[in-house]
């Protein structure tokens, strides 16, 4: 569905990105003309268009909230930005804070570059906690710091503070989260996602399974991150959190669904 012209446009948008990053020092993320189509080979090659021509610039201190009906592609967009999904078209560039602020393209990037960005620049809180089984909670939350070179003791101390703030009881810290309630798991997830204080945060429904009190805690944490200068793109299912954290909203609409063989 993306024409060659659109591809060229996306390409030229990418080419014009570098000056944009240079001209706007607060720019952290520039996504232009993102499209995502899934091809299900196992089902006769049916194609599902999840995103069409989405563009987004995010600067430090901004929190862009994605809004739109279910199926609009909000999660898909976040995953594309994180490199978890391959964008079918368009360009995604992120300022690499660990390398003199150069913009790095996620689209077409080498795995090790994406991993480097994920370690030092982009954080992601997924909707569902998918963690390594059998690792105790405290170690899980401390791990992003340890992998960035923070001493183990300090990492654990910071993890403990964050878990406490999120009201995860201390008796759970030595246990693996597999047996926790949905809300507890989600809070562990959030702690793990926020602890390293990444300059760019992608949050996918971080408050979905939380009660009102914990939603507030999370909202506060997000606001603090934002005020610290993080650039945030998030999906929140409740309006109260949205209004607390958002500086801007971006509305997505579900694209039409196509079949491969369109019978006229």
């Amino acid at each position, binding site marked *: 569905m993306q024409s060659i012209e659109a591809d060229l446009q996306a390409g030229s948008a990418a080419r014009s990105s570098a000056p944009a990053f240079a001209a706007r020092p607060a720019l952290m993320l520039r996504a232009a003309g993102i499209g995502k189509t*899934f*091809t*299900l*080979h*196992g089902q006769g090659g049916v194609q599902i268009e999840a995103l069409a021509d989405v563009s987004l610039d995010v600067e430090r201190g901004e929190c862009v909230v994605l809004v739109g009906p279910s199926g609009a592609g909000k999660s898909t967009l976040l*995953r594309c930005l994180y*490199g*978890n*999904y*391959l964008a079918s078209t368009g360009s995604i560039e992120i300022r690499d804070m660990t390398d003199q602020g150069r913009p790095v393209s996620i689209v077409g990037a080498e*795995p*090790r570059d*994406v*991993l480097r960005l994920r370690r030092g620049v982009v954080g992601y809180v997924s909707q569902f906690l998918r963690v*390594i*089984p*059998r*690792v105790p909670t405290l170690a899980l939350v401390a791990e992003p710091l340890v*992998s960035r070179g923070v001493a183990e003791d300090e990492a654990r101390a910071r993890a403990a503070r964050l878990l406490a703030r999120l009201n995860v009881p201390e008796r759970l810290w030595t246990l693996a989260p597999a047996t926790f309630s949905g809300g507890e798991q989600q809070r562990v997830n959030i702690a793990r996602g926020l602890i390293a204080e990444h300059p760019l945060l992608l949050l996918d429904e971080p408050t979905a399974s939380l009660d009102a009190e914990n939603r507030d805690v999370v909202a506060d944490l997000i606001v603090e991150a934002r005020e610290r200068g993080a650039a945030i793109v998030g999906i929140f299912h409740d309006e109260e959190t949205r209004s607390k954290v958002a500086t801007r909203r971006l509305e997505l609409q579900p694209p039409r669904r196509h079949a491969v063989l369109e019978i006229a």
Partner: protein
Amino acid sequence: MTPLLSARALTKQYGGRNGCRNVSFDLYPGEVLCIVGESGSGKTTLLNTLALKTEADSGSLHYTATHGDTLDLRALSEPRRRLLMRTEWGFVQQNPRDGLRSGVSAGANIGEPLMAVGARHYGEIRRAATQWMERVELDATRIDEFPAAFSGGMQQRLQIARNLVTGPRLVFMDEPTAGLDVSVQARLLDLLRTLTSTLHLSVLIVTHDIGVARLLAHRLMVMQAGEVVEAGLTDQVLDDPQHPYTQTLVSSVLPV
């Protein structure tokens, strides 16, 4: 950054069929790369070709040694190759009995690579063996027992210790957890995960188990009928598979 291991158009076939064809990739220090595929996909042939256990038919293979020189692995003499395998590489076999000496004690098994590179102090060799047994979570008081006295999972840990004791930079693993009980597998995978990250090892793992790949690997290469059909970041290949075969593979995993 220079890659640690570089393969270009690597091909090894048996009578013009099977094996692996036209494989190219770069492996960087500290990366864990999983080669995934079903039996007959050519993944074990590829691993053996990369580890120089089998000779490739064509293609190039380069390795950056500790002193910074790039070695053309296919042109390496046998003595150099054996020295490389002894000092900078490790190879963990699927069946631990293939990678251990059954006639000598656990401590001798772990200490042998040290003795092979000139260690001459009995007490220090024993100390190193003890330390490594602890690191792989084996009871170090069992250092004088023979491998047959250990269970399968423990033998595999022993083999891992034997391979890591010389501090290699690149470790090849051929289905390291196949054939083990699920719970034993799980503990072993945890151990491998910890070791690969703390020791900053580069690891090439062959497995048919996607769960292993997801847990351990930064990168994934999917093989089918001898060719690499898809490669990339592990979570990307598994969450957003592009190739038909990869999609089949991912959707075939039984949910727990």
